[in-house]
């Protein structure tokens, strides 16, 4: 069981905001922190890892206090057993793939090293340096290195956000496999819905420094699933005037969809807006794509 009770004054885009959260995570649970960028998600991970100090509160991991403001306990990052996968992977350029992973081990364990290299499919490239690797390969090295420490918590800071769609899907499976195989407790920061649905047991929505909703992904995100409406959320990429109507291009999960809007409707829209595309009257087709 991991208990987080954290308060910290953040300065985001020159605005002061208090981060104030109280979360309990069960052992072997996979949870996701969801929220806008700048909401303090990464800061929460860094507070758990001991890289950033909270103003108030406590962090209790499996009965052991890692941080407690009142009792003046603050373990340094070295004493906290976390595996941290950074957004930029933070691989050591001077070490090979194998050396990077070994660096995370407290004692050298050849069997465990081999297991990690195999499960992350890195065995054939174990002697290469990080600069020679693709994004997906780097990501797997970062993951293997974080797991090599046999962490109490695995912290993933948008680990797949820099990768393209196909590799992302493949690595989501890998994440799930590794989480299960090594009995990990995992905290993921993400705003990719498919990732959240596929991986997490619970999701916490962070808004204005507070957790506003939490629960199973389908309960949190699909509130109107019984109404029979089809709804997608996406982002406007472009608005083009065409005679009396406007054609709006919307990016939805890697696909661009063109939607017709009246000029009146288009007035309130601009490029970069987050929008919901819904269909009421028609039942949509479902076609299987392989």
């Amino acid at each position: 069981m991991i208990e987080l009770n954290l308060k910290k004054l953040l300065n985001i885009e020159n605005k002061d905001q208090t981060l104030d959260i109280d979360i309990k995570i069960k052992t072997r649970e996979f949870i996701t922190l969801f929220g806008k960028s700048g909401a303090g998600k990464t800061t929460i991970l860094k507070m758990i890892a001991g890289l950033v100090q909270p103003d108030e509160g406590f962090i209790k991991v499996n009965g052991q206090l890692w941080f407690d403001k009142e009792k003046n306990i603050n373990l340094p990052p070295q004493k906290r057993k976390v595996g941290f996968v950074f957004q930029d992977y933070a691989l050591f350029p001077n070490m090979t793939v194998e050396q990077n992973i070994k660096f995370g081990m407290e004692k050298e364990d050849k069997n465990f090293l081999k297991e990690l290299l195999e499960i992350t499919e890195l065995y054939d490239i174990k002697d290469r340096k990080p600069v020679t690797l693709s994004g997906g390969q780097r990501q797997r090295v970062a993951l293997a290195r974080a797991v090599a420490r046999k962490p109490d918590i695995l912290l993933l800071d948008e680990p797949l956000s820099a990768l393209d769609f196909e590799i992302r899907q493949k690595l989501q499976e890998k994440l799930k496999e590794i989480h299960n195989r090594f009995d990990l407790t995992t905290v993921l920061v993400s705003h990719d819905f498919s990732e959240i649905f596929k991986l997490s047991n619970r999701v916490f929505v962070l808004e204005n420094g507070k957790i506003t909703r939490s629960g199973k992904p389908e309960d949190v995100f699909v509130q109107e699933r019984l109404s029979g409406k089809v709804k997608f959320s996406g982002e406007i990429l472009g608005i083009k005037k065409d005679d009396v109507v406007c054609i709006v291009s919307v990016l939805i999960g890697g696909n661009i969809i063109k939607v017709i809007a009246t000029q009146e409707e288009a007035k309130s829209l601009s490029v970069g807006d987050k929008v919901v595309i819904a269909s009421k009257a028609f039942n949509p087709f479902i076609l299987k794509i392989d």
Partner: protein
Amino acid sequence: MDNDFLTTLLLTFKLAFITTFILLLIGIPLAYFLAYSRFRFKPFIETIVSMPLVLPPTVLGFYFLVFLGTESMIGKFLEQFGIKLVFTFEGLVVGSVLYSLPFMVHPLQSGFQSVPKSLIEASYTLGKSKLETLMKVILPNIKPSILTGIVLAFAHTIGEFGVVLMIGGSIPGETRVASIAIYEEVEALNYDKAGDYALILLIITFLILLVVYTVNKKILKIEDL
């Protein structure tokens, strides 16, 4: 080539080697502190480190004489241990270290600052201490900066004149380095001998820099692969 000539050249390079080695030992912790610390009086220390860049060497030499000379408090104190820093080789080393300090510290400091913070944080979360992180993660990734610091400090020590003249004088085999020798030979109108010194210094510094740039390019190439 006579004996005097060789002694002077050897002394010059001995001074440069020892100075560079000491600077490396002092420079790494100092640059580390300047790069990562949020100490309030950091600008004060940064200023002191950079002073030799703009200060005339004679000023540095003058204060050195005043504060470390045999009549000064520190000078008297050191004399009890048999250490004399004025007109000795040891004095030259101390003076050169102070004078070339920014040439070692600045490249190292910008090297430290160029290391992504996440690399250091990753090392900490993997259970490695600050020292281990420095030795295994930070230093291996700033090799070009270390090399630049070494070369600049070395070359600058060979080329110094004012500080050496002020605190070392020109005692053959003790404090008479090549730059001083050239000056004295020219004053005595021995242009041939001055020319010999000058040519040797020119060739050797050229070769050192050439080796460094070749090696540096190789390091960068390997890392770019």
